[in-house]
């Protein structure tokens, strides 16, 4: 049995981060997501829930998966959707973010999905406009819908995450995915171990109540789920590289085929996009132990649930 919550009073206007959501909030969202996940398997996977809503997707950073996933979720619920993307930071040339969002908001927008390289931008937008704000990733701060879809996927494997052993492997310091996951997983009672080179661990990360390991073998032997994070290749080649080479990284922290035989129990997740041959061998990514594509499908359902709840749908 999963820890489900019925007749729950969900009272959030925004989803800025999982730091603001309680355990009950998270379980409720995941519960709602299960209904939407069923809809996705129907012959016509559409519902009219957001028929009267207008949503803008504001993407200041490149994104394929997250943006498509949000857009699909919105369209499957019948919302009117507009997309704005810019790789240029608005403050560097032309209009400020505040002006951009106030202008867009004047066109009568109900919800804003935002991704930005600066932590805190979703919070900033709540001060600029009335619309509901959904954080689709703010710098290395939070990426709450990713963590929700990760937890949803873990629930498909283990139902109740209490006491489950989750390893997160790789570039911890620069990952918003890991921050939201640590917050959410700890709230649901999971045990979390972070594994990767010491230089990719942020200072004081143990404040989250997680453990740190520099030993992949030990970590894989322990865990129920191993979530590998993307190594941000674009950071390599800078003057201050944080680890010596991709080769050494893969040798020490890459998940290999041999691990699947050696440790037969753990499942493999990855928020994508994968660098094959870095975080894991290709065969590992394509193996039956990997639930990476399930994560992607679940992402649409989880985002539908969040959009539904923040549109006030459950309060009607």
């Amino acid at each position, binding site marked *: 049995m999963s820890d489900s919550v019925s007749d729950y009073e969900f009272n959030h206007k925004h989803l800025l981060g999982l730091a603001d959501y309680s355990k009950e909030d998270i379980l409720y969202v995941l519960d709602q997501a299960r209904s939407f996940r069923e809809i996705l398997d129907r012959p016509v996977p559409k519902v009219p829930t957001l028929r009267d809503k207008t949503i803008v997707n504001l993407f200041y950073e490149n994104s394929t998966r997250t943006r498509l996933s949000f857009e699909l979720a919105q369209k499957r619920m019948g919302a009117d959707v507009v997309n704005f993307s810019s790789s240029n930071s608005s403050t560097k040339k032309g209009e*400020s973010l*505040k002006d951009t969002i106030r202008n867009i908001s004047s066109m009568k927008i109900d919800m804003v999905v935002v991704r930005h390289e*600066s932590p*805190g931008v979703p919070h900033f937008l709540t001060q600029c406009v009335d619309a509901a704000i959904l954080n689709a990733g703010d710098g290395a701060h*939070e990426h709450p819908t990713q963590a929700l879809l990760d937890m949803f996927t873990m629930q498909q494997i283990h139902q109740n995450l209490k006491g489950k052993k989750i390893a997160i492997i790789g570039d911890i310091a620069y990952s918003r995915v890991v921050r939201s996951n640590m917050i959410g997983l700890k709230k649901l009672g999971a045990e979390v171990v972070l594994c990767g080179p010491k230089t990719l661990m942020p200072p004081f990360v143990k*404040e989250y109540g997680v453990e740190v390991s520099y030993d992949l073998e030990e970590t894989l032997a322990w865990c129920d789920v191993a979530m590998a994070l993307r190594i941000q290749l674009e950071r390599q080649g800078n003057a201050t590289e944080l680890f010596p080479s991709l080769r050494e990284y893969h040798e020490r922290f890459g998940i290999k085929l041999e691990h699947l035989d050696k440790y037969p129990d753990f499942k493999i997740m990855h928020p994508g996009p994968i660098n094959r041959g870095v975080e894991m061998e290709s065969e590992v990514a394509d193996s039956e132990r990997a639930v990476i594509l399930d994560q992607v499908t679940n992402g649409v359902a989880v985002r539908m649930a969040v959009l539904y709840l923040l549109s006030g749908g459950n309060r009607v």
Partner: protein
Amino acid sequence: MLLKNLRPVSKTHKGDEITDIRIVDGIIKEIGADLKPSKDEEVKDFGGAYVSPGWMDMHVHLREPGFEHKETIKTGTDAAAFGGFTAVACMPNTKPATHTRDVVEYIIKKAEDTPVHVHPIGCVTKDRAGKSIAEMADMKDGGAVAFSDDGDPVYNSQVMRVALEYSSMLGMPIINHEEDLELSRPGHMNEGKVSTRLGLDGTPGIAEETMIARDILLAEYTGGHIHVAHISTAKGVDLVRQAKKQGINVTTEVCTHHFDLTDEEIDRQKFNTNFKMHPPLRTQEDVDAMIEGLVDGTIDVICTDHAPHAIEEKEVEFIYAPNGILGLETAWAITNMRLLQTKKLDLQQLVEKLCYNPRGILNLPELKIEEGAEANLTFFNTDEEWTFDLKNVRSKSKNSPYLDTKLTGRALGIFNKGQLHLNELK
């Protein structure tokens, strides 16, 4: 002019006696109880408020010339007077940089009609570029009181060595913005628990401390006077403490926000950019160390690093917002609340940090409250509750972390340049 019912605080007054002060032509003519006004004499009753020799903020940015949209000498000195300061030393990161005598003289001239004495700090290096030292002697003759490339460190150790040697010949301090840029960038706040939680790149304390350590060693070697700008970390205070024990010519200052606020504010205030400055807000341990350093004399000076930025510059994404906050208007209230009301320092010690020490470091004459002395005075209370709201911001910019905060203790005005300037709350 007769000023009635004041409690003087100075090296020779503890603030425990009420007296009257008569000022004629900008000179203190008479001090005594119950002075009677002569015919037509203007009388101002202060009702038992304190008076001390005029305060000085030795670390402000007046932004003129070049950045008049942030602050001007006029608005910046209005803010200073509102904060109780009769003098400020202004940093040279202007445009053009204050790196030649003509810019020094321009600033002094522009400040002539203001109620506050403005003492320019000249650049250490030409164009603040960090490559070769500026014309220090000429700037001194023009009225500069110290040298600094503030906003940036003097990064090249050889340039710093030369600067310390040359300025020591002139008897002038070098004020260094202590920051190892490789260690600190691209930090947007203190590196620690909170930066990890918020996913913001952090500037670690060691970026400041390694530079302080270098400068102390260079000061010892050259015999120059290094003044450590806006100290913010516990280890940094310790380095200065040890250096002072060894007799090295080092002094330092702390900004009011660094003995009041911690990096937790950036989380609590939801990425409010009015809590972003350099050095960043640090931890409670550091705040405690600032207070300890003030108490034991390691930290000589209380300053503000008053750094105005326009609304449109600050109302942006956190990582794009410039560093810096206002300080002049709220300095006394924060000092009063954190140091006096908590009994960490007494009034006389605070006047040392706000008046005697900064003036001493900058070789300005010592101020006195005695008959025959020039009337350069600050009036203040310690118990008035007030709110620093937008109406009461005197700066041209509004970037204060204390906006709409309830404060205790207010500067009531100053007497300077022959005139009484009283602050009215709006």
